């Protein structure tokens, strides 16, 4: 009996050993070709105080400091609780601001949940400042949601109409000028309205000390730029906005062999540097020029589509469901025709 138990013991250990061997083999594969994201929401550190959250709808920028947390965009409604959890894992500072780069659901759908998880700057201690009036102004002392007035108008609705988003997700600090700025966490945050790019309400957000530009859907590394003509977007406005991003960013130099320079967080896809935006801008300009030349020679939309003016980038950017190459070509065509 003792011998039998010992035999089982040996084989149990051997079994354990086999299991661990297999496990070790798996984790030690020397050329693992891609890091698997631990969950659907991935947090990338951009600077010591700056992060990008991917996989929650649109990309989210996270600036952290002693004043609290500033976000650019809140992601989708479905991912909002994961976003809040991800932020809590990297800081215990309260979320103070959400800056909406546009009014699309994958960027603002999480506004209400994420703002509620934060705390307005009018509620800095045990006692809220400003009483009921401040509470009413700040969605009950939630984090402030800041955007262009165009975003507010698209998310809300006139009295008697049904709004696209619930009231507690609307921006409570909207601006109608070309520029808005904050000085938060010891750095200037420069918010620049781009009046007719992806839509008419886009903002580029430039964090001066962190040297990070958040481009929103003006730059989309997963597809051709979505030019939403019905919401005020245009091809020329898109190119102008990309040029503004390029202008704000600085590449490595004179030590050009170094990495880095200004980082640019796109609306979707990987973290970028200036030259990546230049590549994207050049693509958009070239496709615009090809389509314009065809319009000038009298081609119809169907003829333009058939000529495949974006062929060089179709595989890279043209296969995203909901925004195909044809969608993009049609938007450029209509935008150019409307500008004539």
């Amino acid at each position: 009996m003792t011998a039998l138990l010992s035999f089982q013991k040996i084989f149990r250990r051997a079994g354990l050993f086999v299991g661990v061997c297999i496990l070790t083999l798996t984790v030690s594969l020397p050329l693992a070709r891609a890091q698997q994201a631990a969950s659907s929401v991935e947090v990338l550190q951009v600077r010591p105080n700056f992060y990008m959250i991917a996989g929650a709808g649109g990309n989210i920028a996270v600036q952290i400091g002693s004043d609290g947390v500033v976000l650019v965009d809140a992601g989708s409604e479905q991912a909002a609780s994961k976003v809040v959890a991800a932020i809590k894992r990297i800081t215990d500072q309260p979320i103070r601001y959400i800056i909406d780069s546009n009014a699309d659901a994958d960027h603002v759908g999480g506004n209400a949940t994420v703002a509620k998880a934060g705390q307005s700057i009018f509620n800095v201690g045990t006692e809220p400042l400003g009483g009921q009036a401040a509470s009413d102004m700040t969605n009950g002392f939630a984090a402030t949601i800041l955007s262009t007035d165009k975003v507010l108008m698209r998310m809300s609705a006139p009295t008697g109409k049904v709004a696209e988003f619930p009231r507690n997700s609307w921006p409570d600090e909207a601006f109608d000028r070309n520029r808005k700025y904050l000085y938060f966490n010891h750095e200037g945050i420069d918010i620049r309205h781009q009046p007719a790019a992806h839509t008419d309400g886009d903002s580029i957000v430039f964090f001066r000390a962190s040297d990070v530009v958040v481009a929103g859907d003006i730059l989309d590394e997963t597809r051709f730029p979505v030019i939403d003509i019905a919401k005020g977007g245009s091809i020329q406005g898109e190119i102008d906005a990309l040029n503004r991003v390029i202008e704000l960013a600085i590449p490595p130099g004179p030590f050009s062999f170094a990495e880095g320079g200004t980082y640019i967080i796109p609306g979707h896809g990987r973290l970028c540097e200036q030259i990546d935006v230049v590549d994207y801008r050049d693509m958009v300009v070239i496709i615009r020029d090809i389509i314009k030349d065809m319009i000038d020679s009298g081609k119809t939309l169907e003829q333009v589509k058939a000529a495949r003016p974006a062929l060089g980038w179709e595989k890279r950017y043209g296969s995203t469901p909901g925004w195909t190459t044809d969608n993009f070509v049609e938007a450029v065509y209509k935008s150019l025709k409307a500008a004539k």
Partner: protein
Amino acid sequence: MGPDAVLGALVAELLLETNMDRPQHSEARSGSIRTFGVACLIMLQAVTPVFAQIELSGSWGARNYSDALSNNPGPRWLPLDFMGLPLNATGLWRGLIYSPSTISMPERICSFYPPIYMLMGPFGLKIWNETEPRNGTTIAWHINGWEDRGPTTIWMDGRAHPSENAPHGMSGFTTGQWVDDVLTTYTTHMKAGQVRKSGAPNSDQVTMTTRYFRHGDILTVTARIDDPEYLAEPYYLTRTFQLDVLPAIRTVGPPCIQGDEGVAEEVVPHYLPGKNPFLDEIMKKYGIPPEASLGGAETMYPDIRKKIKDKYKAPEQCTYACGGPGGFPLRLQ
């Protein structure tokens, strides 16, 4: 705890417990356990990086014998010279709209090339290793950067490549392992650029598998380039280097000062489809028809000669970049 440490701890624990139990068991059983452990070790070694089998450190001077003829002493590439390059239809389309003025754009003057340039360019290599301070194993091999190419770090510690959301750098991201005596590396996260200076594109999805063979003082480097966007088949490049004592190659290149090369900001030089003025340039200079000069996978193989034999007409006199040293023309006899 890394995989080697996990294995070591397990083997130690298993052998210790087996020894403690030994009086109660047959030698054969504990022997089979040890045999099993050794077998597992061998299996693990087969897939775990083996560190620093061959010394690669030193200054390796360029010997531009092959696949480096686009630089001195060979000719410069002519526009639309894509011969031997397995471009797919999309890659050719991009190549045909490319304007050489692109590199004079203010934003591109100092942007230069992806790591593929190690095999495209004319420069030598400075290679050194970075060691773990306590056990001396090689954590990484470093290859110098230059003005027009980022430095390469080859991580040998088994780390994973970054996620798809990580930035793509001028150097890409490279991991390596020894396969016999050949350092074999894999590079991802490269920037979009050119796989050949004649305007043939590479996408940011390109990957490169590179092998470093050392034979005495000669280092042969081969690279397999895979680009799902623009290449129909893998593209291979080879270069040779020779160990030099003098001059020592610097670890970084000279700085790049952005000048004005005549292209205004926000201007994007390019040709419209079908309107590239250099389409027959190779035909005019060398009599080589577009079927060969515009590349494609079949232009990598000898049978392309049969396809173009009736269209190829050697010029009476070669006048440009005929293969002589320094790009001087060689006259036909």
